[in-house]
């Protein structure tokens, strides 16, 4: 018994057994989904592995405090700028009162008494951390004569009207704190780097750290629910015109993305099913096979997801597009098989015979179609992007399952009784076209070839550019509130370009200190040489146990009693108010205590209150693990090219110190060539595979050439259409090309195999072209439905694929077939041997 007959026997005579198998597969699949379903919402996991810059970005994104930071912004009308300044403190007060709010940065900490006090609290460990020569110079100010001279000088300057001595004496009455606070040296540094008020005063920004327990999608959603409730009531008391409360940050993005994933799954699957169902019904006017097709596709999705979970343990956001893609692809098989089955029934065959005929006639095409598509998607394994690797593997599994299920389980839903189709206008149209094409193929080529050639020229000419979006926003969900907020903030706050990050991990505190000391010296040289514009590092905050021990020993040589007396005398002589200098005496006490051999110096981390605004500055440099740190380099011009990146990668590191350079702009200089390489290299590999497969399959140079040219023209037409319709490529929808290539090969195989092997060409071509057209339309509808996804990765992929599939289908029908007829005229039926006819 042939394989096709065995299948027909099982699905018609052993239906209970088949259903049992189906139910078992479904139970196992659902069980795996319920037990293991984990979603990975990290957008950075879509980026390829193997790039240090990407790894650095992931580290910065996950380990530094910004993971729990939200940025609030108030945006008012220009005429309300003064009102906004008046309203801002009330808003901050409300914000601080929220149970999820840990701290808010409402202005430079130096402008508040608390900020100054916090700075004085951490002075001791930072002072002891100074380099020996700096420390010696600093504590020389404790000599009685120097104390007196300094205070007398400052007194004279106050009399002269200078604001400086008042600022200096308020912060640093002994002159010891300033040298120890290099990172805070420019008291407006934080404001300069990250201005909190827009130049036109219509926007005020409030970075806020939350107490979100984890960075999981669910915790982000929970937090943002509370935050949005606060947003609704936050403007109470505002009496001006329109006031917008903008909120952005990682949690805002993750909450939106994870919610949009749910929307994307529902919207794309439902619209995909609806569109595909509509096309199927228009083509065949049958409900039960449509139901069977949907059921089989659902089972394919279940198998793919379950297998994916077992393999990867956690599914990335891109894989939510898996179901829609699989529906778009798998439906081809059902339509082809059912088309052939219906043709056999309409010619008088019984149910079982028609099933066997359909499987026998198209099983080979379905097998090769599934193979090429599966291999096409498996090529994504080479992308190095975990999200796309998952997508590729899941679709490869799903499409293989579809190949099996559509030739077996699908028939469980096909009724035994036959109701012939009346008025099949699609079949009639196809028949007319096939007859005309067989009679005058060149007349069709005369129209299709010039159109495709024109599109080829458009695709190749550089004057009409294909837009390539290489910024991070191309990955954001559409209409993202967090994205819009960020965009508005960026517009209003024209800051310098994004710095390059230098992430350094160390094993010990001393090593961290030594690393940053060397790096700071090296970067200072680069700055002097004009190779970089500026830099900032956690050098002064990275404590050195060795220096601290040495400096403590030096403190033992100070006569603190004499210093205290000198300070008291200087205050009296210069008629200073001793009460205003209490912090100076306190610091002297601390230094004296630190000189004791058994004194344990407190870490500055424990001295800084949790709500201190200085944490915003500290946490720019330190991750949650205090031995993971980052420095910032501002380049002379924004990093935009790989040449710039290569120069930085060569210049910034210090020999022997492991440093990871990163930042979005820096990383994109890696990713853009990567995505170009993706487009060329992997597509080329796949094209070679497809070409080899076709050569083996056809064993005919002319047919092989026809198909290869068709594929090239279809891809060129796709590029030309994207150019003309201004559909941009982004980092991820470049992968659409391989998908179109895979499906385009399938269409070619379906029609050319029939053309090559058929003994009744007109009939068999009509029988296959109709399903191919319907399959093409359903695939276009399936992928087009991805356009409804909020995630631009998915929607971009869907739109690009829909365009590509349209051209693949059009090229197959209007170019491949007439070209095959033109270059290889079919011999009369009598020319075939019996064996060949049997094989066909």
């Amino acid at each position, binding site marked *: 018994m042939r394989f096709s007959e065995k299948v027909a026997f099982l699905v018609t005579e052993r239906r209970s057994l088949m259903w049992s198998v189906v139910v078992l597969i479904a139970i196992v699949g659902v069980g795996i989904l319920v037990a293991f379903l984990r979603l990975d919402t990290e957008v950075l996991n879509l980026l390829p592995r193997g790039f240090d810059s990407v790894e650095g970005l992931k580290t910065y994104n996950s380990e530094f405090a910004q993971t729990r930071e939200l940025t609030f912004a108030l945006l008012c009308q220009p005429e309300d700028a*003064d009102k906004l*300044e008046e309203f*801002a403190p009330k808003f901050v007060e409300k914000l601080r009162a929220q149970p999820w709010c840990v701290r808010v940065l409402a202005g430079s900490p130096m402008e508040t008494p608390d900020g100054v006090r916090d700075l004085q609290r951490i002075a001791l460990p930072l002072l002891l951390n100074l380099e020996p020569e700096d420390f010696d110079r600093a504590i020389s100010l404790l000599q009685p004569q120097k104390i007196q001279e300094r205070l007398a000088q400052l007194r*004279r*300057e106050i009399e002269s*009207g*200078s604001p400086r001595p*008042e600022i200096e004496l308020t912060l640093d009455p002994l002159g010891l704190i300033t040298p120890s606070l290099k990172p805070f040296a420019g008291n407006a540094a934080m404001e300069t780097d990250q201005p909190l008020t827009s130049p036109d005063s219509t926007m005020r920004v409030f970075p806020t750290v939350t107490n979100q327990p984890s960075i999981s999608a669910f915790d982000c959603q929970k937090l943002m629910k509370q935050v949005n409730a606060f947003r609704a009531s936050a403007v109470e008391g505002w009496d001006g015109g329109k006031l917008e409360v903008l909120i952005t940050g990682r949690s805002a993005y993750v909450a939106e993305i994870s919610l949009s994933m749910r929307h994307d799954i529902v919207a794309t699957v439902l619209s995909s099913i609806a569109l595909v169902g509509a096309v199927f019904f228009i083509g065949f006017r049958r409900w039960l096979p449509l139901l069977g097709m949907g059921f089989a596709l659902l089972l394919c999705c279940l198998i793919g997801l379950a297998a994916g979970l077992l393999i990867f343990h956690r599914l990335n956001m891109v894989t939510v597009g898996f179901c829609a893609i699989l529906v778009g692809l798998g439906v081809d098989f059902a339509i082809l098989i059912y088309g052939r089955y219906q043709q056999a029934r309409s010619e008088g065959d019984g149910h079982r015979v028609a099933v066997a005929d359909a499987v026998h006639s198209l099983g080979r095409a379905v097998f090769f179609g599934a193979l090429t598509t599966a291999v096409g998607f498996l090529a994504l394994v080479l992308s190095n992007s975990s999200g796309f690797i998952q997508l590729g593997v899941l679709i490869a599994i799903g499409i293989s399952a579809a190949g099996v299920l559509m030739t077996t389980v699908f028939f469980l839903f096909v009724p035994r009784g036959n109701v012939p189709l009346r008025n099949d206008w699609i079949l009639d149209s196809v028949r007319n076209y096939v007859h005309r094409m067989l009679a005058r193929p060149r007349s069709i080529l005369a129209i299709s070839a010039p159109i495709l050639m024109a599109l080829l020229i458009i695709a190749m000419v550089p004057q009409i550019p294909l837009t390539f979006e290489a910024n991070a926003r191309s990955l954001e969900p559409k209409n993202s509130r967090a994205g819009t907020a960020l965009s508005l903030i960026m517009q209003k706050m024209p800051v310098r370009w994004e710095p390059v990050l230098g992430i350094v991990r160390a094993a010990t505190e001393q090593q961290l200190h030594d690393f940053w000391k060397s790096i700071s010296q090296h970067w200072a040289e680069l700055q002097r040489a004009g190779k970089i514009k500026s830099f900032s590092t956690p050098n002064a905050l990275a404590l050195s146990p060795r220096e601290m021990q040495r400096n403590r020993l030096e403190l033992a040589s100070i006569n603190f009693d004499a210093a205290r007396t000198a300070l008291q005398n200087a205050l009296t002589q210069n008629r*200073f108010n001793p009460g205003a*200098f209490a912090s100076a005496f306190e610091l002297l006490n601390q230094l004296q205590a630190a000189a004791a051999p058994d004194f344990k110096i407190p870490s500055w981390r424990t001295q800084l209150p949790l709500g201190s605004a200085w944490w915003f500055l500290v946490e720019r440099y330190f991750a949650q693990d205090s031995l993971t740190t980052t420095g910032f380099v501002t380049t002379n011009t924004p990093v935009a090219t790989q040449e710039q990146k290569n120069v930085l990668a060569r210049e910034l590191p210090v020999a022997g110190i492991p440093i990871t350079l990163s930042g979005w702009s820096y990383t994109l200089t890696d990713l853009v060539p990567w995505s170009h390489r993706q487009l060329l290299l992997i597509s080329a590999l796949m094209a070679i595979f497809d070409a080899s497969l076709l050569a083996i399959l056809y064993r005919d140079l002319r047919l092989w050439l026809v198909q290869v040219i068709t594929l090239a023209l279809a891809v060129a037409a796709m590029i030309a259409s994207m150019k003309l319709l201004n559909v941009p490529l982004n980092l991820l929808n470049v992968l659409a090309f391989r998908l179109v290539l895979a499906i385009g090969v399938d269409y070619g195989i379906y029609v050319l195999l029939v053309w090559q092997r058929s003994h009744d060409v007109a009939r068999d071509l009509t029988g296959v072209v109709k399903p191919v057209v319907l399959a093409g339309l359903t695939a276009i509808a399936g992928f087009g439905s991805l356009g409804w996804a909020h995630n631009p990765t998915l929607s971009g992929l869907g739109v690009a694929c829909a365009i590509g599939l349209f051209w693949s289908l059009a090229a197959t029908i209007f170019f491949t077939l007439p070209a095959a007829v033109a270059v290889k005229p079919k011999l009369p039926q009598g020319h075939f041997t019996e064996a060949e006819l049997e094989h066909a």
Partner: protein
Amino acid sequence: MRNIVVVICLITSCALGVRAESLSPADIKSLLENIREKRAAAPSMQADFQEQRKVHLLDEPINSSGKIWFQAPTKFRIERKGNAPSITVSDGEQLWIYYPNFKSAEHYSLAKRSPLDAAISAITTALNLENVEHTFHIAGDKAGKGYDLELTPRNPSMKRIFQKLLLHLSDDLFAERTDMLQPNGDQIVTTYQNPNHAAIPASQFEFTPPPGTEVSTPLGK
């Protein structure tokens, strides 16, 4: 006799009441409009001044005197005399303070949210009064001679620098006395004498440090 004393007290009270008549919001608006017209007609001013500063860091106030030149809206020059002379010059964007005794100068960039911005605004507000109603709550009295205004900042940045600015204007609506109270308890009282509204050459608001001057930028560039 007792009745006479009571009558005298009543008359005195009435007289005082007349001398310190509160201004309604409409009066204040009208007054500010008059001030604007005056400034438009005479945007320059130079005067002698005397200043008393109570600084919380010091046990006793500091007295100084000198001369001030002002050009609306934001240019000024202050020359202090005495034991601790200094020259303060601002063109509205840059501020220089030169100390002849120390041969040193401090240079500040304004309008970059420096801590000096609001302090400078206080000086220019007192002498200019342009658009003060937008940044201050204003209350006022008609005094026997001129007007007394009390300006309370609306904006947090101003509030950080001073709590209240008391301003006495002459009958011709120019500042005669200012009293600025700061949140940290510091107080600056300035009186202006011998005002003159002749035009002032632009060079008066420019400053180039003399050769050999040590220049510092205490708040960075």
